[in-house]
């Protein structure tokens, strides 16, 4: 199963589909897809580890909050993240270990301003889960 695929639907911004055979994989793969836009993810050393927890009222909101708060975390911690180890996840809660290192201009790619509601969805499929995410860059 591929982890994610970028779509060319919106000229001004970025859109991708993320996949997972379970919620752990979906959450990790979606975060990785987003961070390939934010930074040169292959060059970010995962030497600094941080525990990270996000909640929501349902799966859609939890997934939204997961990605949104990761965007904020880049600015707050001044860190890029390259690996996302999901420890626990269900429809209302995700706990993870984020592996990353300090931001440097030579590792940066694009500013992601926010998630948008354009085609945003998280749904079960025959293979597991699929999410569609649009990012305002």
């Amino acid at each position: 199963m591929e982890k994610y695929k970028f779509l060319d639907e919106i000229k001004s911004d970025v859109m991708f589909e993320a996949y997972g055979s379970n919620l752990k994989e979906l959450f990790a793969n979606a975060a990785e897809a987003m961070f390939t836009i934010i930074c040169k993810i292959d060059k970010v050393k995962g030497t600094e580890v941080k525990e990270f927890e996000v909640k929501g009222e349902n799966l859609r909101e939890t997934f939204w909050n997961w990605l949104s708060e990761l965007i904020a975390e880049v600015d707050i911690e001044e860190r890029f993240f390259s690996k996302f180890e999901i420890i626990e996840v269900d429809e209302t809660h995700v706990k993870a270990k984020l592996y990353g290192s300090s931001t440097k201009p030579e590792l940066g790619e694009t500013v992601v301003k926010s998630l948008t509601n354009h085609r945003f969805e998280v749904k079960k499929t025959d293979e597991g889960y699929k999410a569609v995410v649009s990012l305002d860059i």
Partner: protein
Amino acid sequence: MKEKLKQISDYEWVLPKEGKMNVDGLIIGNKAIIAGLQDDTIGQIANVAQMPGVISPVCALSDAHFGYGLPMGSVAAFDAEEGIISAGLCGFDINCGINSIRTNLTVEEVVPRMNELIEALFAAVPCGVGSKGKLRLTDEELDEVMVKGCKWAVDNGYGVAEDLESMEENGCMEGADSSKVSDLAKKRGKPQLGTLGAGNHFLEIQKVTDIYDEEFATKLGVTKKDQVLIMLHCGSRGFGHQVASDYLKIQEKAVEKYGIKLADRQLACAPVNSEEGQDYFKAMKCAVNYSFTNRLVMTQWIRETFEKVFGKTWQEMDMHTVYGLCHNVVKLEEYVIEGKKKKVYVHRKGATRAFPGIPALIAGSMGTASFICKGSELAMEKTFGSSCHGAGRSMSRNAAIAKFRGDAIKTELAAKGIVAKSTSPKVLAEEAPLAYKDVSDVIESVDSSGISPKVVRVEPIGVLKG
């Protein structure tokens, strides 16, 4: 949907009210602009025209293109008593905008030193994803920036009082309330003041190529061809993005709470006088003020850099602010609607204020011309005092990166006499001139229609991008 448009003048096309639309749509554009207009953009105008308290018309300017809810390059106004206010109709980068700074230097003086100047500016102005800001504000300082805007900047040695006279809202929207801003937004904002950002944000050194309105240009201190100007384009950074995201969520819940019927979920909003509406307005003003301050701090660093390179004070080089304005903002303004004065909440999303006698700054894409225009009474009558803000993308970021090589773009720009520096070659590829639409039709539409006549045309000679 394009077949529904009715041409009413050379540059005005009406989307007549029908079905659930409460008002007409209006599109400003020449034939080329209309030919290139996508149905989904027109559809979005029709959706906004269904919203409660919307005032006629919902306007798409000549650079309008598909956005989230409201197209980028559009304006929508709502009744100040019965309408709505929407975070989404303002945009995520609150007060993304432009400052134009003049100099009395000429191309002959600057071009020979451009490499040195660009390198020095690159060192002085943090840009790009991953760059760290130089100012690390305390909580108290951030509070002051949110409420006092550029007044804080001047008090702390960034800019002078005179700069504020040449800025929309004098560099500070009154009524900002820092208690309406989340802790998350504040945490993001503290380390980022004085940073350029990335993407289509830029710092350009420009040369004047044409002056169309000598009298108005002279008032702005722009007097001759080959005069060097500077343009700074950026916004409220992570601070503003977070304010927008926070209130998008709050207003999605408000839609349910107040039973607002919407054609598109992305038009989430709240009644103007509700807590969710007014809290957003007060928080948005904090982000507007942060962005004005951001640009003034960088203006001062640009001045100091020019001082080091040219060995004169910035005052000797006449490096005063020509004008500073917003492209994404909500304002409470008064217009004559059906013969009566009425207060409305004007949402400008990728649109420039174009009031009579005031400059309207319209940026081209990297390597192409930008314009100083002026507002007009016609804009007040037709488009809620608004004009376009620049050409949109014709090609996605991924497509541009696949098609163009950053080092080749840099070489092509150099062949045109433009020194470009970015944090990585990929940025130049992403922002390649051909990834954007041609700004000439965008400008021709607002100029020839009388919405915002051209005053000065500039071309880049040096470009800094994150």
